């Protein structure tokens, strides 16, 4: 028995792993998922976007009043603020920039969370801009996610109507040299992205009414599997443009980003499949692909713990001999 195990343990482990996942996937019982504070941070930021957008307008109006009463105030600053306020009043439900920055290798973990974030933004009624980061392979993934979410408003409760490209959302597609493009968005979004992913002129689209530059964006969400991806948005979105940034990432890199959550540089963090499942539970996505996979996660983790215990017991026996 022991010799069979020693000779064939790899194959046995593979088969049992496969069976654990398969059994987990066919489980239909509901799994209770409690959202962590990190996940809730992003949910609250997006759910309260219209309210925070209105508060931002009020703050800017107060600033404008102060500037108008100050005889030494720069007229250019006054004009810029006036223009910003008039633009902000057009985008009543706020503006979200979703950055999708991963390739098919991380699709299993990150696509469910991207879908949930898209659906939540649509439900809130925010204008949604989507761009991709370093990897050109993100483009087809992002394209599918956004078009699915735009079509299927009944997958969340309460549902939202059909969302139209160029009116409710805009997918910019891939541009080389992501960092420089993001910085250029601070000057003009239409200059950074003259055309959308399908080659249509962005400046004439209805969604661009009330949108000029990065100052018109209320929330940045980056879903990234690359080292340095969320950091880049913390640098550009939070530090340079002062906008709240939230991030979703693979579980491998999640532990590196908790310090940014603690420092307030990230307002929310979704870590791996679990983060996606928590977000789906909060938004009320149905069918929920990440939640469905959590049974498989549960079984395979239990199996991994059992293997660790068995391995340690075997080690103890061997060292005694």
């Amino acid at each position, binding site marked *: 028995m022991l010799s069979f195990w020693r000779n064939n343990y790899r194959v046995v482990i593979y088969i049992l792993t496969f069976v654990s996942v398969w059994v987990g996937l066919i489980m239909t019982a509901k799994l209770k998922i409690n959202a962590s504070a990190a996940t809730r941070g992003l949910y609250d930021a997006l759910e309260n976007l219209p309210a925070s957008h209105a508060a931002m307008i009020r703050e800017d109006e107060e600033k404008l009043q102060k500037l108008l009463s100050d005889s030494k105030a720069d007229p250019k600053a006054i004009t810029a603020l006036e223009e910003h306020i008039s633009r902000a009043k057009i985008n009543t439900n706020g503006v979200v920039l979703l950055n999708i920055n991963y*390739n098919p290798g991380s699709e299993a973990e990150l696509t469910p969370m991207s879908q949930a974030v898209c659906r939540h933004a649509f439900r809130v009624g925010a204008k949604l801009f989507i761009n991709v980061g370093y990897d*050109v392979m993100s*483009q087809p993934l992002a394209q599918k996610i956004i078009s699915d979410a735009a079509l299927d408003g009944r997958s969340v409760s309460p549902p939202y109507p059909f969302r139209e490209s160029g009116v409710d959302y805009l997918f910019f597609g*891939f*541009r080389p040299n992501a960092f420089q493009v993001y910085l250029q968005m601070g000057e003009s979004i239409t200059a950074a992205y003259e055309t959308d992913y399908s080659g249509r002129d962005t400046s004439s689209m209805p969604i661009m009414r009330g949108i000029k530059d990065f100052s018109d964006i209320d929330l940045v969400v980056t879903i990234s599997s690359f080292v340095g991806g969320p950091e880049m948005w913390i640098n550009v979105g939070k530090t340079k443009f002062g906008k709240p940034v939230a991030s979703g990432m*693979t579980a491998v890199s999640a*532990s590196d980003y908790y310090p940014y959550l603690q420092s307030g540089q990230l307002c929310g963090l979704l870590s791996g499949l679990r983060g996606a499942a928590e977000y789906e539970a909060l938004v009320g996505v149905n069918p929920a692909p990440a939640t469905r996979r959590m049974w498989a996660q549960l079984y395979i983790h239990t199996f991994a713990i059992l293997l660790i215990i068995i391995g340690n017991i075997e080690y103890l026996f061997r060292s005694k001999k």
Partner: protein
Amino acid sequence: MGPDTFIDLIGVWIAALLTLGVYSSLIKDTFISKLTEAVFVGVSFGMSIVFTYYNGIKPKIEEPLVRYYQNLHVDYATVTNAVTRTVEKIADAKTLPAESATEELADEIASRSFDTNRFFAVLDSALYKQTLKLQSTNEVAVSLQSAFASSEINLVDKATVMGALKDYFQGYKTVPTSRHFWVLYIFISVLLGLMFITRFFPKHAWLSRFPMAYTIGIGVGMGTPLSFQSQIMQQVQASFIPMLVRSANGIDWLATFGNLSLVIGTLTVLYYFFFSFKKEDAASRGATKIGIAYLMIGFGASFAFTIMARVSLLIGRINFLQDEWIQGTYEFFKYLN
């Protein structure tokens, strides 16, 4: 979820067989597993080239250069006539302000006086687009209409509008001087890009250092100040936290413990990596041990997250095989019958 068309079905089958091909390497490295690896690398690279061309080279280099060349040879009178006709139509139609504007905004725009500078700026934005084909009167008309539709300018007084348009044409050039410089800039950029390729020719490889230096210089110049602020200053600032947290009900012991462990962890781990002197006394050894414990907890968390991530990928693949391949194929043929 499953395939809708026969082409989709073929795609799903190819994906499923390639997935199984990759997993076959768990048993043994075979021809199939090596083939799937090669297919993966080849397809990824091929797609990257195509997407980079369509999203980078085409809109940023090819189209502006082609349009620039075409617009150099365009007839001035054709363009001005097309612009005049379009602006006249817009002024006649009185369709402005934009359809999407609210009633309140429409009233406000109607009360505004005609702004010549803004009018010129809108014309500039419509006529000096990188990709605008001036030979096509249709394209010119569409570009002007969309620019004016979102401009919020009151164009009701036709006489004033046409007068301002006449003034605009006095300084109008089909290709402005700035566009000539822009083309020069594109050529320099392309040249720098091509210099990278000289790495393949040992004799001229030194030329690749110029674009390399340029790229690194730009990256470091733009990234360093932001990174320093985000990754060092703000992180250090975030570690200055109260050691005793008070709440409305007295001391918040949980938060206090959290803050204490954060400060102790930060200091002891930093101390562990401090190698300038020997740590022989009991206090130093104790601090080092605590630092190691913190590091181990950190590595443990990272390792656990890594397992979770890898398992998620496996779940994703098995989910695909079950839902899209097996169930999808079954439902496809069931629907056909």
